[in-house]
């Protein structure tokens, strides 16, 4: 059982790392602010989720695992809102001096 859980953890964390990697490449290579934000927030939220899910079975207590879920939810929520705000600010700046 613990071996299966360990394999689950490794697979999920590797998947999370892959999306982090993809998101970072997107942030470096994409041409506009909006597309870079898209790459960063979509991929990062996904990878944080994969890593949180993957590490959950390794927690000693169920409440600790729930705290990980809460942390993921907070990250998801705040980074989504922050990326919207950055995009709005970028659009406003472009209108001011094209």
């Amino acid at each position, binding site marked *: 059982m613990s071996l299966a859980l360990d394999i689950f953890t490794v697979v999920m964390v590797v998947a999370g790392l892959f999306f982090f990697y993809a998101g970072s490449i997107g942030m470096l290579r994409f041409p506009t602010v909006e597309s870079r934000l898209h790459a960063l927030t979509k991929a990062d939220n996904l990878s944080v989720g994969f890593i949180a899910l993957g590490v959950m079975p390794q927690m000693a207590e169920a409440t600790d695992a729930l705290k990980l879920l809460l942390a993921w939810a907070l990250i998801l*929520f705040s980074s*989504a*809102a922050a990326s919207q*705000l950055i995009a*709005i600010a970028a659009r406003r700046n472009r209108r001011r001096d094209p």
Partner: protein
Amino acid sequence: MSDVVLHGGLILLILSLAVMTVVTRDTFAAITAFVVYGMLLGLAWVALGSIDVALTEAALGSGITGALLLRAAVCLRDKEAAAEVRRPGRAAHRVSGLVCAAIAAGLAAMVLMLPDPAPSLAPAVMESLPATQVKNPVTGVLLAFRAWDTFLETVVLVLALVAVWGMTPDALWGGRPGELRQHAHDGPLVFLARVLPPVGVMLGIYLFWIGADEPGGKFQGGTILAAMWMLTLLAGLTDAPPVSRRWLRAAMVAGPATFLLAGLSGVVFASGLFAYPPGFAKPVILLIEAASTVSIGVTLCLLAIGPPSRPANR
């Protein structure tokens, strides 16, 4: 081996961000680098096993300080171009470089000359901790063994706010700090400011409450409370109260006042100043922490939004 890679990478990132903070010419980029630097420093504290320090570094050293710096940068934006023109001469550069290098070398020499193993009071703390009835040794040290230092720390915060308020123009004294924000009915910021504070307030109170037994405490909890208040102010959901309001000032000094009263009552009920009556240490510590959490939250938020800038009646 994996520790070497992980910690080595962390150290490299922290060092390069520190250099970037100093070298970058753009103020906003420098502040961003500083905030990320603080976050990574928090990770380094976690790696060293000091969760309390890590939380404080992330919340205060990185979060609130970042907000303060951003506000300062916005205030300085117009004057920055003029300052760029009057760059100091080559001689001034050389002298300041030499002074900085000498200080860095002195610090490095001192750190290298520290005795190894370092002298530690940790065993003595762990031995006396049961008397305080709290289980987190950091809280025990901060609120019982070194209570005087911690009391002065809470006073310093209030004094800093007094200094910020001292910048108020005479005509606006007693007015409201920060800009008046149009209340928008939708948009991501308003949404964030509506949904996040209930969770954040609960988290702030949880951090204060758990501080007695686990990593956490009034500074970390108070910072989160301050951030939640700042969020609602930024979104225009609430307006900052005039600084002349009595309840506001009471909230500012509640923490230091409770701390001082508890400390003074030690002269009567226990063995001396800042000594707690045996058997009642934990309730007294919790009372001080609760009052301080409120004061720290209020004071940090008011520090970040700055001196009064408009009359009390808008």
